[in-house]
């Protein structure tokens, strides 16, 4: 709530600054705007920006740093026996934040921890109060400084436009920063993981069972972190999905683009697009509760033993999800094949299907390959369908009737619930995430290059 309040306060101050700046400019102009370098609006915007932007920046920085700083302060006061053991420390920190949030009455913890919790609560209050004060000071300083700078021949418009341009550059930079953020956060924890587990074992190991002892007194099992079974499972499900999505998607695109009457297209195209808009969690539910039992029962009547979390169920449904993706991308690509090529083929007396098979499809092939690669990348990264319909057991099998697990399923399983950021088990999720990111990134770069080249050819 306090955040909303602060934001509102800053917005209000901005509005005030705008009015002040504008009034001052109007006053300076003496009623004739041509005496000013810029329009009064620009002077208003100028003061508003100087009032609001530093305040906003402060707000962001403050919120980003508040947590780490207060925590560090609290930890520095804890006894060494707690801080020296990472496991204990994280338990203590949990308790402390609960106490600080006033939810910790029932906790049975050491008095130091209770005290630390209370201290954290106080620190938070101090921080919040300080933030309000500092924020107001910054905003008002910005306002008064910029207000005083307003004179008739100040180039307010140029100033405002320069600020706007920098803001826009900053916004574009966020796109880059988020990639950097992804790489760093994955790399950081993955390296942490590789300091505990040999990277070679991770990359080439054939066994995956990430159970490690959390407490020293538990029956210790070391856990093995070989990702090959996960990757094999991912590829198996992806393969099944592609076997469904590629032929159906391609033929749908061909029919839609070359044969369908405008009426049919007007209905069928949006209907296919609905398939693309259905959230993946819905597909997951469909796979787990409709398709998987159906396959299991069908298998039983045929005398096959189909696992109720078979790769087939997840793969089939994932294939359905990807159909519109393949079909709309390849439709795009095929419609870019110039009409002159079609004319050339029809002019020689080819039938429609001959034209499609011998001229359009080969011409569009690079683009279609790109589209399929993008679809593969999407299938590999798809999470909810496999979380809900594929298994957890890391079987190394090529049998689609058995249960397999995937990289994304393991990431979710490892990170939902209690997280211990010092155990190899939790950290392995980040290593898996890194692999997933690199693989999909590679596929995307490759696919986009393909598509790009293709587009240039016919533009």
């Amino acid at each position, binding site marked *: 709530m306090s955040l909303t309040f602060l934001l509102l306060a800053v917005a209000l101050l901005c509005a005030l600054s705008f009015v002040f700046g504008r009034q001052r400019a109007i006053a300076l102009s003496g009623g004739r705007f041509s005496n000013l370098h810029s329009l009064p609006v620009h002077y208003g915007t100028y003061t508003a920006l100087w009032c609001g932007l530093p305040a906003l920046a402060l707000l962001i920085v403050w919120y980003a740093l508040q947590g780490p700083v207060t925590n560090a302060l609290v930890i520095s006061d804890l006894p060494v026996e707690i801080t020296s053991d990472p496991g204990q420390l994280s338990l203590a920190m949990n308790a402390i934040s609960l106490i600080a949030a006033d939810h910790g009455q029932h906790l049975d913890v050491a008095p130091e921890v209770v005290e630390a919790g209370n201290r954290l609560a106080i620190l938070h209050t101090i921080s919040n109060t300080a933030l309000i004060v500092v924020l107001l000071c910054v905003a008002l300083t910005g306002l008064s400084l910029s207000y005083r700078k307003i004179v008739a021949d100040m180039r307010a418009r140029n100033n405002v436009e320069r600020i706007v341009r920098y803001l826009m550059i900053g916004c574009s930079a966020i796109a880059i920063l988020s990639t950097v953020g992804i790489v760093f956060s994955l790399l950081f924890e993955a390296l942490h993981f590789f300091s505990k587990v040999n990277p070679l074992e991770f990359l080439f190991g054939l066994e995956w069972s990430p159970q490690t002892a959390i407490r020293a007194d538990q029956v210790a099992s070391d856990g093995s972190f070989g990702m090959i079974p996960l990757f094999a499972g991912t590829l198996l499900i992806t393969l099944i999905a592609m076997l469904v999505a590629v032929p159906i998607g391609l033929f749908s695109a061909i029919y839609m683009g070359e044969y369908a009457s405008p009426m049919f297209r007007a209905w069928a195209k949006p209907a296919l697009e609905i398939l693309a808009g259905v959230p993946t969690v819905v597909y997951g539910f469909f796979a787990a509760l409709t398709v998987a039992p159906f396959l299991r029962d069908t298998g039983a009547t045929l005398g096959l033993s189909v696992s109720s979390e078979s790769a087939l169920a997840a793969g089939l449904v994932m294939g359905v999800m990807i159909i519109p993706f393949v079909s709309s991308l390849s439709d795009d690509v095929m419609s870019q094949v110039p009409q002159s090529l*079609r*004319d050339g083929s029809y*002019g*020689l007396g080819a*039938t429609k299907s001959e034209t499609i098979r011998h001229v359009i499809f080969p*011409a569009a092939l690079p683009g279609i390959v790109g589209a399929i690669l993008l679809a593969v990348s999407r299938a590999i990264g798809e999470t909810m369908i496999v979380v809900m319909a594929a298994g957890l057991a890391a079987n190394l099998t090529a049998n689609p009737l058995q249960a397999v697990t995937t990289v994304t399923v393991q990431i979710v399983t490892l990170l939902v619930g209690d997280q211990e950021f010092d155990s190899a088990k939790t950290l392995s999720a980040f290593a898996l995430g890194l692999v997933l990111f690199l693989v999909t990134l590679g596929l995307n770069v490759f696919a986009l290059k393909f598509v790009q080249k293709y587009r240039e050819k016919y533009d």
Partner: protein
Amino acid sequence: MAVVTADAMTNAPHTRGKSKMAARDLDLFYGDAQALFNVDLDVMEREVTALIGPSGCGKSTFLRCLNRMNDTIDGVTISGKVTLDDRDIYDKIIDVVQLRARIGMVFQKPNPFPKSIFDNVAYGPRIHGLVNSRDELDEIVMTSLEKAGLLKEVKDRLASPATGLSGGQQQRLCIARAVAVSPEVILMDEPCSALDPIATAKVEELIDELRSNYTIVIVTHSMQQAARVSQRTAFFHLGKLVEVGETDQIFTNPRDERTKGYITGRFG
């Protein structure tokens, strides 16, 4: 040069042939808009017939009626009659695929398929099942390239992609591709408009050679070109066929005022 070709043209033996194709009372509509009005035109066997006229006059539209290419465009309706050897090509029993094999077409912009040179020429014979062996196919491809005057230039790189050829070569390849199906009529829709003068000269030469075996209809926006390559010329204006006659006569002594205005450059 123009003089020489004009000479060559008058010296050329005029096989006053019979009518190969004919349009009678042809009307064409794009949706509600009428694009062709009541066109009556005979295309003589083994002659080059040039269709000229200002842009948008319907000459290309008319050309596309002759092999039913307009069928591929939605909303086109046609009334009247177009015949090939006295058979109505819009008759229900006529098969479009077969029709287009008999009436080849070359387009405004060279449109080689993104395949090898060989496969481009072999495409027609292959889809129509005209050959039974690889040798036969080789033979057809070679003679077609030869006829298109392209063989010398490409015989060492038949397997390389056709898109690597120059514009003029591409257009001649498209002509070879059309010839490979051994059509009776070849329609050319401004075949030189995307080519430079040298390539244009080569294609024009080629057209003149092809005349001895094929009936050719060519749409052109260049009156010089019509004068150089054609024996008969038809002038279209606003969707109507204004005048048709011997090329000589059209260019030296047009009967209609509009034709006169167009060829003397008053409009167009």
